[in-house]
């Protein structure tokens, strides 16, 4: 009898230990996934969590899985998973914020605004962050900006000042008129460039066109017809090229205003982590 009990004990201990070190069990996927998540290897954490979720449901793992999708920039899938944790989850608020941030980073601004109208989608805890994201969509879109009073109301102090500055620069950009710049250069070579603020280029164009014209006249006077013709051609090219160059520079200037502002805005948002809170799941 004792022998049998002991034998049973031996078998039980052996089997239980053998099962305890299965690296591909549900629990192991979870543990290993958490380790990968903590160490920032989101792509592998995602794989482990997927394995886990295929066999078992868990609020934390679901939200972490959505977060890994977000971190590996699979934003639309992340949005779907965050949405699936909107109800009956311990992370309902985080899921709502995660959903909106996923739509934001996916560039689905229309969906973002549409879902913002559904009150129950907005987490009271993170409402401010979601509304800030909403404001940022206006800054990143090509459409005209809405009234500033409401969209800026979610920002405080320094960030509000900066956002107001961006608002003004986006709403009323300091553009230069292309035709006006070209006409200036036609009247006085280089003056169009000066109008665009390119003083060095303007002065150089003025001197180059002037000198080439002088050389053409001087060579014709000295009876060097070939050289006179060459310098006349060069003077003409310089004159026409300067007018054309001024028109292009004006266009470049206007594009530059838009592109630089866009870069500045994006850099500011990134620098401030899109005003998103650090959440530990």
């Amino acid at each position, binding site marked *: 009898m*004792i*022998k049998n009990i*002991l034998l049973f*004990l*031996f078998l039980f*201990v*052996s089997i239980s*230990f*053998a099962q*305890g*070190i*299965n*690296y591909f069990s549900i629990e*192991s996927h979870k*543990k*290993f996934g958490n*380790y*990968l998540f903590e160490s920032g*290897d989101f792509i*592998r954490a995602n*794989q482990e969590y997927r394995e886990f979720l295929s066999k078992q449901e868990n609020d934390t793992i679901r939200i972490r899985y959505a977060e890994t999708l977000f971190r590996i920039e699979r934003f639309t899938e992340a949005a779907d998973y965050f949405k699936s944790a909107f109800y009956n989850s311990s992370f309902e608020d985080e899921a709502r914020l995660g959903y909106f941030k996923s739509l934001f980073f996916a560039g689905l601004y229309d969906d973002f605004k549409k879902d913002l109208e559904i009150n129950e989608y907005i987490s009271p805890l993170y409402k401010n962050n979601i509304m800030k994201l909403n404001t940022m969509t206006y800054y990143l879109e090509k459409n005209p900006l809405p009234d500033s009073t409401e969209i800026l109301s979610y920002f405080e102090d320094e960030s509000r000042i900066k956002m107001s500055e961006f608002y003004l620069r986006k709403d009323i950009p300091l553009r230069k008129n292309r035709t006006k710049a070209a006409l200036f250069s036609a009247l006085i070579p280089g003056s169009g460039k000066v109008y665009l603020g390119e003083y060095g280029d303007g002065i150089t164009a003025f001197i*180059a066109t002037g*000198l080439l014209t*002088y*050389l053409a006249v*001087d*060579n014709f006077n*000295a009876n060097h017809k070939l*050289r006179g013709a060459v310098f006349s051609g060069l003077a003409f090219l310089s004159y026409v090229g300067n007018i054309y160059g001024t028109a292009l520079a004006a266009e470049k200037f206007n594009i530059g205003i838009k592109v630089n502002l866009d870069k500045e805005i994006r850099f500011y948002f990134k620098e401030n982590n899109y005003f998103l809170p650090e959440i530990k799941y």
Partner: protein
Amino acid sequence: MRKVIFLLIIIMASILSPAVFAQSELKIQKEYADNLFNSGQLFDAITEYKRLQFFDIEGQYGYYTNIQIGEAYKGGGRFDDAVTYFANAERTASNDSLRFDAAINVIRVNILRRTNDNAHQLLDKLEKDMRYNDRMNEINYWRGWNYIFEDKWLVASIVFEKIDKNHPLALISKQTDKNKYSVNFAKVISYILPGFGQFYTGNYLSGLMSIGWVGLTGYWTLNSFVEERVFDGLVVGNLLFLRFYRGNYQNAEQFTIEKNIEVSNKSLKNLQNNYQGIKP
């Protein structure tokens, strides 16, 4: 008596079984990861080595997994991650020899990602370390490679010669250095004879254009002075003659640099495809 022995066996089995099972599971996991690594499935290999590392509580495979993960990341071109894991391997090495090997792996990745100054600093550190006096050849070998990747073929050949006068890499480096064009010679010859710097690098059309432009604008400049149209001469001389003269030697310099890049790339390609020794 038999009962006591039986009881002892049971107790021993209970104590040892987890360790034995853990060992065999770890070994199976290692083999699984190795198979993935050897079949070139680097992404999955990294996952499985990381899994092995995570469940290997005693750190038995710590060094090995760090090295393998580093190699896999390196194979996938993720050099920064590779350095992180090789550096981890250096920390987890159980003896000086393994530590040296891990350090060399860090250096090799630095050579590949062209952070050559880092590689030199790490090599200097190893060179100064008395424990590795017997591995000076390896240090010189990787220093030579570092110089190759810095495009310093002559220095590389000198370093390889420290290992062996007739080291194949010393010969290749020396030959590559010989095949390269002298930037200074191209510039000086262009100062004296415009267009000849371009001829030196085999760009004959460009050389002829330089001779033509510098000659024509030079003539116009001189002619203006001869005809006492001094302002004319100064303007043509400054705006045209000097522009073409300067363009001539700058062009020669540029062509030489481009040709030298071609020579270096050819040698590097040759090393990549035909050299049988260890490469970074």
